[in-house]
């Protein structure tokens, strides 16, 4: 492959938009993913991304702005999941599974029953660079700024709540509100990332960069920026691969992350594997 072939896609507006969104969305997912991984919320991230598909389908069929509809739906799902995980009336993983997969199934059924032939469900499910618009660029940049602002302004509180929620609550921190804020940021991140990653693969974009970062560092602040960089790298490289291999963007971004994970596993040796094992068992 020549250099000309490598840089050719940069001439296209749709690719420029897709590349910016994939890179920024990757960074966003990497940043939020640190909290997702350290709080053992991987399953929540996975479930929430599926739940949002229900809102996407309903709003697409109803002719409502998809981001607005899916956003409201996602926020409601996030608050429901947050409430379930806090109160634990039944096993929280089971409750999350019921809430989120039911929402996903509802979205699929609604699209089939509602005659959603002109709705690009594949793009929502697996990501599609062609579906990325200028609006998506502004959305993902806005959500990223919001996420960075939340993390900077609430850095110590979020760290305390992530590490030791019981003592954080006893120290006077509003743990329920901080949890809800984090779920709101997570839902907004999923929403902003949906077009590029697809709802079925967003969980990997949330988890993989943070896990790779955890394997190579034992510092929380280092993990935050490193995971953000890894996520951006995966988005940038994955989007380019998506164009050249003619494969949906979601899978290529996730596969770049998987390769990085294997590389980190090999490079970090036993220390990385031990850290990884501990993250997995939290």
């Amino acid at each position, binding site marked *: 492959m020549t250099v000309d072939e490598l840089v050719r896609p940069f001439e296209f507006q749709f690719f420029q938009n897709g590349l910016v969104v994939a890179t920024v969305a990757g960074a966003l997912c990497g940043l939020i993913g640190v909290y997702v991984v*350290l709080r053992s919320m991987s399953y929540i991230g996975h479930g929430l991304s599926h739940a949002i598909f229900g809102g996407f389908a309903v709003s697409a069929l109803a002719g409502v702005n998809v981001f607005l509809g899916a956003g409201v739906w996602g926020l409601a799902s996030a608050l429901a999941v947050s409430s379930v995980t806090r109160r634990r009336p039944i096993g929280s993983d089971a409750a999350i599974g019921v809430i989120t997969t039911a929402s996903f199934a509802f979205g699929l059924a609604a699209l089939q029953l509602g005659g959603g032939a002109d709705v690009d469900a594949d793009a929502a499910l697996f990501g599609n660079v062609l579906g990325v618009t200028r609006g998506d660029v502004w959305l993902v940049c806005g959500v990223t700024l919001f996420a960075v602002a939340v*993390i*900077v*302004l609430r*850095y*110590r*509180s979020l*760290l*305390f709540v*992530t*590490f*030791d929620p*019981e*003592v*954080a*609550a*006893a*120290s*006077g921190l509003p743990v329920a509100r901080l949890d809800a804020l984090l779920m709101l940021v997570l839902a907004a991140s999923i929403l902003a990332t949906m077009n590029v990653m697809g709802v079925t693969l967003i969980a990997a974009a949330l988890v993989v960069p943070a896990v790779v970062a*955890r394997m190579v*560092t*034992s*510092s*929380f*602040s*280092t*993990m935050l920026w490193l995971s953000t960089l890894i996520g951006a790298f995966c988005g940038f490289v994955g989007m380019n691969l998506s164009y050249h291999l003619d494969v949906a963007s979601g899978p290529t971004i996730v596969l770049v992350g998987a390769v990085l994970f294997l590389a980190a596993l090999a490079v970090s040796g036993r220390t990385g594997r031990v*850290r990884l094992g*501990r*993250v997995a068992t*939290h």
Partner: protein
Amino acid sequence: MRSVGRDPLLALRDIRVDYGEGDVLADVDLRVAADDFVGVVGPSGSGKSTLLRVLLGSVTPSGGEVQRAPGVRVGYVPQVETIDWDFPVSVSQCVLMARPPARVRPWPSRDEKAAVARVLDRLGIGALAHRHIRALSGGQQQRVFLARALLAEPDLLLLDEPTSGVDVRTRHEILHLLGELHDDGLAIVLTTHDLNGIAAHLPRLVCLNGRVVGAGSPAEVLVPDVLETAYGSPMEVLEHGGMRVVVDRAPDARIIPLPRGEGRSA
């Protein structure tokens, strides 16, 4: 830290806690004054940690009344077994969490760094500030969480099993350290399984088994009647060097005689 007074920092009246499967605690009364150093003893599942959480405020009782002195600050040192030692934080980052940020920037101010250094130095772990929390001995790990609690300048310190899993020397060091903090005016309530190594050395004990079975000095609480009621097992209490020594006398336990010259004094 508060001056010693008659009014309690915390008072529990007729406390009942029910997690949905029967009472974990019932009819519990406890007053903690500014000059108190209280040990809560009892078998596993007797409600010791729950009582501590009621004092902390993280568990809301199903019944009864909790009275707190206005503005009272409570520090808490959790059981080491409940802590995620692989969480990516250093000693100083862990300690700093307890202090509400003085400004919006995520990194600590010079004053905050100085406050952390002071409390770490006081506890003898100043040189470990940049270590990861896992890369410490059991006693050092306990001191890190003690430092985190002290950084918030509490009036009352609650410790859940502060000596579990540590060796005898570390246990002595922790007990000595807590004694110094109490002498400096800090009220302390701790739970312990260790009747001989910890409880017997404290000025005041509360013996629990779902309810208060006994309360008072070690001489009043470490007696066979109270202990057998709490633990449901025959206990013998010996005197050794002015200290109480509790011996488990299970019906099927065999006493192996010591070699000549190593007899016990009773």
